[in-house]
Each structure stands twice: as structure tokens, then as C-alpha cells.
């Protein structure tokens, strides 16, 4: 890859000095509300980001969605999409059996077709050890959601424990959620600090920061949240938990890629992007790849820098790949459900 990853450098150290003393276990700790001695909230200056024109952004995304991807480029794109997939199950009803089946599918998505493995599986912390065993020695990474996923509405200590445990269990990547409540009430300092603390707790694991764009309400908020996540040390920025509608959309993804591009152009380290939820079929996947290619360039078409968080997408992509080979669509029962 042309770009070299630089060491992560955030200004956490200097900034945490401003912290107030908050009694452990108090309500103030949970909400991080300013108390008499807390000037932290007022000293943190969120990054300056240019405004977003919604109509123009959506128009650009729609124009990229019209790219016509045919033949060899279609096949190449679909295989690339598989190699970038974080195959995901995040249900209350998840069991080892389900996770093992999904791991097999991630390793070898299809019995006949020549397709690559998925990039990773994404599971809850309790199921990380199961995935770890199932994927031992393979190229497929294990991502775990943590930090009181999906709401993030728990005390920081709990969130960090969640992260440390998932890493101990063997997670290679942590998908954290930001505190949207804090963001929407303007406490950007808390959002920044929590990401920075989570990054520290991750150790060598990669950190993906979920903004939950469906709850942020405006493109301007998405842009600011992306910038905060990058400056606080996130390795990836990710759209959604998959638990809130709307999840990933093409305009939101385009916007987040533009934020990454601006940081990279300013000489920051490279940052990855993960749209999650809402990418359900092969056609959409190709549209996302076009957006990546024409925003950040071909070097971002790399599982280290771009991922799809999805569960239903894989089979549709496989179906399209088979169709490219045979000229016919096979029924859905010709593709394993797990």
C-alpha cells in the first residue's frame, strides 16, 4: 500500500488533566455532567469542520450509484466485497452453534465458487472465544462489539471493562459505540475522552468507532462526530449498530469517506471506513465500492481500510457471482443460510 500507517497520536494526555473530581458511582459520573469543579466540558474545542449541503451530498451519492459495473469489473468487485465483509450476528439468541456455523461460512463462503474468505466475523463479547476457536489459524479476524453496545448508555468503567474482556477473549477488533446522548447535548469532550479511553483499553486490537448516524440527525453532526472519532484515536469510523433505522446510507458513507480524505490529505494516519446495516444486496455493495474508489482512490479498496458490516449481503453477492458464471440465477436454497 502506498500510504504508511503512522503512529496514533492524540492529545489525550494533555486533555485529561482538565478532569474534575467526580465521586465514583454518583449520577454525575454516569452522565459526566459538569459539576462545580469541572471545566473540562468547556475547555474541549471540537474540531472545526466545514458545513455539509444535504442536497448536493445526496446528489453526488446518487450520481455515483449510477455507475454501470459490468462483466469482469462486476466479478472483481463482488469478490472484493466478500473479502471486505464483517459477517455479523448480534442477537440475544446467539449461541455457539450459530457462531461456529457463521465462522465456517466466513472462512469458505461457498462450496463451489472461487471466492475469498470474509474479512472478519462480528459477535458479542461472550461469543468471542467460540469464534476464536473456530477461526484459529485463519486469515479471518474476530471483531467484537463492546462499550455497552448498542446504546452506549452505561458508565465508562463498565464500557472499558467490556472492551478489556473482549480483547482478553481474543478479539482482534473492537466495535465501540459513541455516547450519542453526550454528543447531542453538546458534551463533545465526553465523546472524545471515551473514545480515547477505549482506544487505550483496546491495546493492540483495532478500534472501530460506531457513530450511529441514524441517531445523529444531520449530516453536519455526522461530519463532526467523524472528526472527533478520528482525532480521538479510532482506526475505523463506522456508521451504525444495525439496531437503528436508518443504518448505513450511501450519502452518509460518502460524507464519512470525505472526512477521512480530508484528514489523510492533512497528513494524518490512514483511517478505515465501515458502513454497517442497510447494505443488503450485491448492487448496493458495488455502489459503495464506487463511492470508495472515487472518493479515496483504489488504495482504499482494501479490507484493512474498508469493511461492510452485514449478514444478508453475502448470499446475494454469491448469487450474483454464480450468475456471472452460469448466466442464470440459482434459487436461494442453493446458498447456505449460515
Amino acid at each position, binding site marked *: 500500500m502506498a500510504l504508511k500507517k503512522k503512529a496514533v497520536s492524540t492529545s489525550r494526555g494533555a486533555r485529561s488533566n482538565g478532569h474534575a473530581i467526580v465521586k465514583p458511582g454518583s449520577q454525575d459520573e454516569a452522565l459526566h455532567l459538569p459539576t462545580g469543579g469541572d471545566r473540562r466540558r468547556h475547555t474541549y474545542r471540537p474540531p472545526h469542520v*466545514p*458545513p*455539509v*449541503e444535504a*442536497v*448536493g*451530498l445526496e*446528489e*453526488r451519492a446518487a450520481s455515483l450509484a*449510477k*455507475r*454501470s*459495473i*459490468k*462483466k*469482469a*469489473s*462486476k466479478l*472483481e*468487485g463482488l*469478490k*472484493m466485497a*466478500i*473479502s471486505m465483509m464483517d459477517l455479523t450476528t448480534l442477537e440475544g439468541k446467539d449461541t*455457539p*452453534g450459530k457462531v*461456529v*456455523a457463521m*465462522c*465456517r461460512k*466466513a*472462512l*469458505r463462503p461457498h462450496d463451489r465458487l472461487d471466492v*475469498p*474468505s470474509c474479512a472478519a466475523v462480528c459477535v458479542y463479547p461472550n461469543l468471542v472465544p*467460540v469464534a476464536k*476457536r*473456530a*477461526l*484459529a*489459524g*485463519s*486469515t*479471518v479476524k474476530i471483531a467484537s462489539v463492546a462499550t455497552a453496545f448498542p446504546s452506549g448508555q452505561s458508565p465508562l468503567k463498565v464500557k472499558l471493562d467490556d472492551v478489556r474482556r473482549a480483547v482478553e477473549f481474543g478479539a482482534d477488533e473492537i466495535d465501540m459505540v459513541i455516547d450519542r446522548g453526550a454528543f447531542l447535548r453538546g458534551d463533545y469532550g465526553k465523546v472524545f475522552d471515551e473514545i480515547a479511553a477505549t482506544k487505550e483499553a483496546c491495546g493492540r486490537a483495532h478500534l472501530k468507532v460506531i457513530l450511529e448516524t441514524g441517531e445523529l440527525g444531520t449530516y453536519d453532526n455526522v461530519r463532526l462526530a467523524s472528526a472527533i472519532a478520528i482525532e480521538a484515536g479510532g482506526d475505523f469510523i463506522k456508521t451504525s449498530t444495525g439496531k437503528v433505522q436508518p443504518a448505513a446510507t450511501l450519502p452518509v458513507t460518502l460524507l464519512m469517506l*470525505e472526512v477521512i480524505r480530508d484528514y489523510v*490529505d492533512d497528513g494524518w494516519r490512514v483511517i478505515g471506513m465501515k458502513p454497517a446495516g442497510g447494505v443488503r444486496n450485491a448492487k448496493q455493495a458495488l455502489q459503495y*465500492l464506487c463511492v470508495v*474508489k*472515487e472518493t479515496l*482512490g*483504489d488504495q482504499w*479498496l*482494501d*479490507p484493512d481500510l474498508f469493511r461492510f458490516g452485514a449478514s444478508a449481503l453475502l448470499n446475494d453477492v454469491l448469487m450474483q457471482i454464480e450468475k456471472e458464471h452460469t448466466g442464470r440465477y440459482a434459487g436461494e436454497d442453493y446458498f447456505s443460510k449460515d
Partner: protein
Amino acid sequence: MASKELATVTQGTALRPPKHGWQYAPSPEGTDHFKLKPRYELFIGGKWVEPQSGKYFKTINPATETVIAEVAEASAEDVDRAVRAARAAYDTVWSRMRASERAKYIYRIARRIQERSRELAVVESLDGGKPIKESRDVDLPLAAAHFFHYAGWADKLAYAIPGRRARPLGVAGQVIPWNFPLLMAAWKLAPALACGNTVVLKPAETTPLTALLLAEILEECELPPGVVNIVTGAGVTGGAVVNHPDVNKVAFTGSTGVGKRIQRDLAGSNKKLTLELGGKAANIVFADAAIDQAVEGIINGIYFNQGHVCCAGSRLLVEESAHDTLVRKLTRRIENLRVGDPLDKNTDVGAINSRMQLEKIQELVAAGVSEGCMIHQSHAQLPSKGFFFAPTFFTGVSQSHRIAQEEIFGPVLSVITFRTPEEAVEKANNTHYGLSAGIWTDKAAKVFWMAKRMRAGVVWANTFNKFDATSPFGGFKESGFGREGGRAGLMPYLNAEGV
């Protein structure tokens, strides 16, 4: 559990990314769904007639330089025949018909354009060089929309000019350009017909085909013979149309030079005239603008239709503090413009319309370089055949430079800086043109402050090159006079009489 079995299974296979990046395979729009005739005659009095001179000229595909068809060259005698047919149709049919009946014909034309839109879009791209995605998504929908819009006005003219009676003018002579051939025909024909006039239309000599297909559509719609006559040819034919003594109204879209000559020729003739001419629009970007969307607006403003757009945003006025960021973003962005086969659905910038136009662009770009401006050009691989020009912009441009003054009518942008809103206004208006302007800022108050001061017929805020059948379009100063589109677009085609 199953995990034990997995130990023997594959270790997972990584994908090797494509060596030269992920390339889009060619995706050309098909051309087998229609058939063009090898030769087209003149459409006069509802019939296809041979030119009296027996002369024909060739129309070529600018992307391949191959001949598409032969087209009749109308002489002054042919034009006279066409005007007489139009006069007869006016006197005996069209001006006497109930307005609601006229509307039905115009609606029918609009629908037939929609039905044949795929074919029309492909022919527009073949004959003119514009990318199929533009002819398909912009030219064709807008052309149909103009007929729909004016069909609606036909029996409501009393509401367009309350308290007065609308009377048609008679025979309209219309001369249209090569940059939006079918769309310009629609802009001209729809209001003329809605108001009850008959027409002699002359399409441009490099792009006559869609107007001739439109004549086929008029036949299919059983429009009474002579209501619309289409005469093809070059400048001499156009001159015969505008100077014909029995023409009551002249509408011309094209260059300012020709427009001036027409205005001189028509002086004292009692013909009504509207002109839509050149432009050198300022696209003004403030530092507080939504910068990424401004970049898209700049791209759309100058590279849309290869810059063959009279209202193109060919002068980028950028607040000095945002200059470097914007130039960096533009430099990156133009590399993503896909230049090539106009029929490829992924092409962003197609072929330059003609060799003559390509040479004019090359001459002005050379002037920019020799005057010391800094050239930035996309590294797009241009096809070896046909007329192509890489997307280009100049920085370090001053108002006094030739590339800041003259209309290039190609994919070439001049970047000029300003410091204050007052200076932006002054520079934007410091041109003999005045067709359009763009303003990019996050501050609504600044938009209105600026828009009020722009000496331009169309002012876009936080967007550019947006057109709508309901919205009037036209110029200030040497960009012309008269408006096309919306209610204002009816006025050039009627006399408002006191009741």
C-alpha cells in the same frame, strides 16, 4: 462441537487486490434498438422534400469522426417554401384552432418524446458527443418537461396576462445551437406552439439529427402540416430564416457575434426578437461554503456537457483564504472524471462537438499558458480518434487575462481569487456577459445580499446548472434578452392586447 472439524478445513483465502486498481469495464449503451436513415430531407409542410439545390452535407460522430448520415442543405428558396407553408398553416389551421385542441397536440408530442427517449438520447450523444448519462438524464427529461409545461399554458394564456388578450404573432423563425440540440428545439417550439404561432426551425449543422427525429414525432402526432417546418443547413440557411420578410418573430440561441449581426439585420423590420447568447459566468465560493458540495458544483458547472454550456460556471471566484484547499480538492476531483466514449454509461466528459470547437479551445488554453497562468489538467487517457479535450483549470488568473474574458465553451475553468463580498460582486459583474452566476456560502443572508447585486439572468445558490421548465432563463448585457421557460417564456411569442 463442530469447531473441531473446522481445524481440518481451509485456512481461509485472502483476495489479491487487482494490480492496476479496480477498473470499470466498458458499458456502452446499445445502438441496435433503432435505425437511422442514410439521408434526411427537409421537413416542409408536413412532407419530406428534397432541397432545390440538390445539395447535402454530412453529419459526423465527433467521438469517432465517422459519417452518421447525409442531411439536406436548405437554400433561400427552400426556406421561402418553409415560411410559406408555415404562413398557410397559421392562417388556415393553427391560429383558428381552439387552444385546448392545440394543447392536445403539444401533450401528445411530450408523451411521444418520452416514449422514444432512449433512441433520442443515443442519437443526441452520437451526433453531438455528449455523455449518454447527460442526454438520458438531463436533455431528454427536460425536453419532454418543456412540452408538458407549455401544453398546460395553451388554454390558460388569459391567466398569464390578466386583463388582456393574448394574440399569437404569426410565423416564428427559430435558429438553435449544437450544445443541447433537442432541448433547445423544445425550448423554442413548445412556447411558440402553445401561443398559437407556426414555426420554421433551423437546427445547427453539426447536430441536426434529433431535430429531424422530432419531425418524425410531429408526423406521428399528426400535427397539422406546416405548423412546424424543419430546415437544415449552416449559417446561410439560418440567415435566410431570420431575414425572411414574412417571418414575424425571430428567436436565436448561439454566439454573441452572430446575435449582434441578427439584431443589426432586423433593425427596423418590425420583427420581434429574442436572443440567448454567450456567457462567462462567475461561480463564487466563499470560505464558509459547504466545500465538498461546492467542488461538485464547480465540476458540474464547467465540465457538464464538456463545458459547451452558455451558462457554464467558467470563472471560479474563490475567497482567497479557501483557495488552496479548493485547488487541492479540484486537482484530486478532476482525475476522477472519466473522459471518453460518449455512449459509455460511465463517461463523465464526452467528445468536443466539432474540430472547429476543439481548435478554439486549444487556442484559448495556449493563450492562458502564454499569459503566465498555471495550468492544471487531468491525466485522463484521451481516445486516439475523435475530438477530445482533458478537463482543465487555470490558477493565477486575473480579470485581465484572455481566459477570464472570452467565452471558451469548453472544459476549461479559470480560477480567480477575491477577498471580500464587495470584491466578489465587482469581479463577477466585470464582464460584458450576464447569463448566470453561482453563489456558495452557508449563510443565507449572504446569498440574498449577493444575488441582489448579480447582473445575471439566473443566479444559483449552493447549486449550479439546474434547469426547470417552470423557471425563466435568459441573459443580461451581451448574453441576450428575452426569457425562455415558465410564464415569462410565453411573452416573446404573443402580443398582449387591451380588451
